[in-house]
């Protein structure tokens, strides 16, 4: 095998994780905004807007985990144990919110417990995904082929800040999703929430952008040396442009554009993150090439992935198409 498949797998894994962030991002965001709804009917609508798709959205998380193990097993074996508690708490959060979809409507008097479960689970899962991101950018203590740090290394200002920032981020995705999927009062409310979240997101983007270069000299060097600065200057400029477009569209009654623009903001942040850490898959010690699985394993999985992933995109897209349009309030409980 002479073809280097590492770049291909880097792209596939990058796309997979990004799909997860976007898709579960908006349904986790709906969970974060859940208690702000003014009545039970609105909460039901909010949940209905994501009920047919949340399960598929979370499948991208499984794909991200297993594909990381398949393409870069050494990274999986170092990064995941290092994130022992953030991952544990994220998983428990996902459990509480995932079961709430069905349990909520089977419960009679206990419905408010599952509302709480949906909200709390979404917040906890989101916060700890943000923590994971922060820890990742900070980097890992590695000795040989093992994580050499402690299980509570994540309790540091930067990861906790990214955790809080992601709450606004997913909140923005959730709110703009609801602007697109609902109408009337709920839509109006979501529009206002989207604005608040956008402020929060921009504040955190600014903070993280100023903070990260000081986390590691390599990040500083990547962004603030010539000629990189010139090549990378479009990243913050485009980000600012998207933020302005999002704000204006929210003010002018746009229904689709805010959601698209919110996804665009995520794309730019994700790109910025990639620029910062490349070519490391375990910052700041192990590169993608160091951690890669055998070319045979990468090739075996690639063949199937190139065939199956487009089909997955097709039927997932079709499923979204079937459930297109506004979610309605017709709630006749049998």
């Amino acid at each position: 095998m002479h073809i280097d498949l590492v770049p291909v797998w880097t792209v596939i894994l990058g796309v997979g994780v990004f799909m997860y962030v976007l898709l579960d991002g908006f349904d986790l965001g709906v969970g974060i905004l859940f208690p702000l709804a003014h009545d039970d009917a609105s909460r039901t609508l909010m949940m209905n807007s994501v009920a047919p798709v949340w399960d598929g959205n979370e499948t991208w998380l499984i794909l991200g985990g297993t594909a990381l193990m398949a393409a870069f097993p050494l990274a999986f074996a170092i990064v995941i144990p290092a994130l022992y508690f953030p991952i544990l708490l994220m998983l428990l959060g996902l459990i509480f919110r995932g079961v709430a979809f069905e349990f909520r409507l089977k419960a009679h008097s206990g419905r408010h417990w599952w509302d709480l479960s949906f909200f709390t689970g979404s917040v906890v899962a989101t916060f700890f995904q943000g923590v994971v991101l922060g820890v990742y950018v900070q980097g890992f203590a590695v000795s040989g082929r093992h994580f050499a740090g402690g299980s509570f290394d994540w309790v540091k200002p930067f990861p906790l800040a990214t955790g809080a920032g992601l709450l606004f981020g997913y909140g923005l995705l959730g709110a703009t999703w609801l602007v697109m999927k609902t109408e009337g009062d709920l839509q109006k409310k979501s529009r206002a929430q989207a604005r608040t979240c956008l402020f929060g997101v921009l504040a955190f983007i600014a903070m993280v952008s100023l903070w990260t270069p000081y986390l590691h000299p390599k990040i500083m060097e990547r962004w603030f040396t010539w000629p990189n600065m010139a090549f990378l200057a479009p990243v913050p400029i485009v980000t600012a442009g998207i933020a302005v477009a999002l704000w204006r569209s929210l003010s002018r009654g746009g229904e689709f554009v805010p959601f698209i623009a919110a996804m665009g903001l995520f794309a730019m942040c994700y790109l910025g993150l990639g620029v910062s850490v490349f070519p490391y898959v375990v910052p700041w010690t192990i590169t993608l090439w160091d951690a890669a699985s055998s070319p045979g394993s990468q090739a075996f999985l690639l063949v199937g992935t190139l065939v199956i992933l487009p089909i997955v995109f097709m039927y997932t897209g079709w499923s979204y198409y079937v459930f297109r349009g506004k979610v309605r309030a017709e709630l006749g409980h049998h």
Partner: protein
Amino acid sequence: MELDPVLLSRLQFAFVIAFHILLPAFTVGLASYIVVLEGMYFWRGDATYLRLSLFWTKMFAVSFGMGVVSGIVMPFQLGTNWSGLSDTAGNVLAPLLTYEGLIAFFLEAGFLGILLFGRKLVPPWVHLFAAVMVGSGTLFSSFWILSANSWMHTPAGYEIVDGRYFVRSWVDVIFNPSFPYRIAHTVTGFYITTAFVVIAVSAWHLRQRQHVPESRRAMSMGLGLLILLVPLQIVLGDAHGLNTLEHQPVKVAAMEGLWETQARAPAVVFALPDTTSESNRFEIAIPGLASFYLLHDMNGVVKGLKAFPPADRPPVGIVFWAFRIMVGVGVLMLAVVTWGVWLRLRGSLFDSPAFLFVCNFMAPAGFVAVIAGWTVTEVGRQPWVVYGLLRTRDAVSPSITGLDVLLSLLLYMTVYAVIFSAGLFYLFRIARAGPPTELEARDARLSERPARPLSAAEI
């Protein structure tokens, strides 16, 4: 006391997988059952099938959701607690797990929305197609995960370089020696588990004299499947046992409670295996029988536990008793099915209060057998995580402490206690309510497109 991260990680894995497997044990069979019901309704137009499908789809929605969330936990366990396994065996196992996600999980999730909420949004044949896709997804998932699991029992098609495994032949990895037996035995076990739940719920409604046409139909369908599958499962179990004897003889020695290597090996019916004295206490055994069913020769020599170094033996008592529980439940199932067939031939299947009463209590039978069988095979693989290659204690993540794992295990136990109790409670509530009445079912099919995806439990 020193907290051992290895032991605690094993307990945690056993805990999260045991609770997770209860869901696929039920939903794999149920997804196929829903395909049959939807298919029959599609071709025959008999609304009894539709009402049954609506009912069992509600049960499916609740259990599938729990299966998804408890399933997401599983791949991460391999990283958080078993990074030694991911590092050494990632080349081999991870592509199989990724294929499971790509082929099976996306398929299930992509069509689940249509199956649960799309009946009024798509043409009937598309809805049926969605049911087929979800059902196929559950089977594809079983294929890949059991292939990976089987490889850990009977590794094949690999070579070792610098202590890590590299694949020489994917065909040999995927279709490793124990895989065909394991998948046949496991999936048949899943179908049997579902069928016993179906006949138990139907029997309960028949005893209450409610939902009679639907319950009779479901009872007949469930029993019809069990007549085929329960005897088949005994044959498959025997074949799987013989395969295990070939590849993991020490596991079979533990299952049989045999310490000495001997010809005319006895079948031990009851015993308390004692590891310190390397013998059984209170043993009741039938001479020669084990040699007969393991080797099909009364004079065949069966290896005993003492033929293996103590460091390579699994915990004998757990394997021995889990095996007896599985076989015992299997015999009980066979008895109930035989009784059902006899009543059927006499034409009094639905009128025997005693039979319906017994069926009622068979609901958990399949789950017990699945957990017991799973315990036999997994505990029986110890002290290895990859049999003969990688010891469990060498696979644990080096960075985690006993306290870390104790904390996480306690959290998992607390959360699962809440979630699984609630889930069981709601499943009972749905089961007790039974299939929708005629009017509701017609409404579900005929009303206009209202675009109101709800909980599947509402349809």
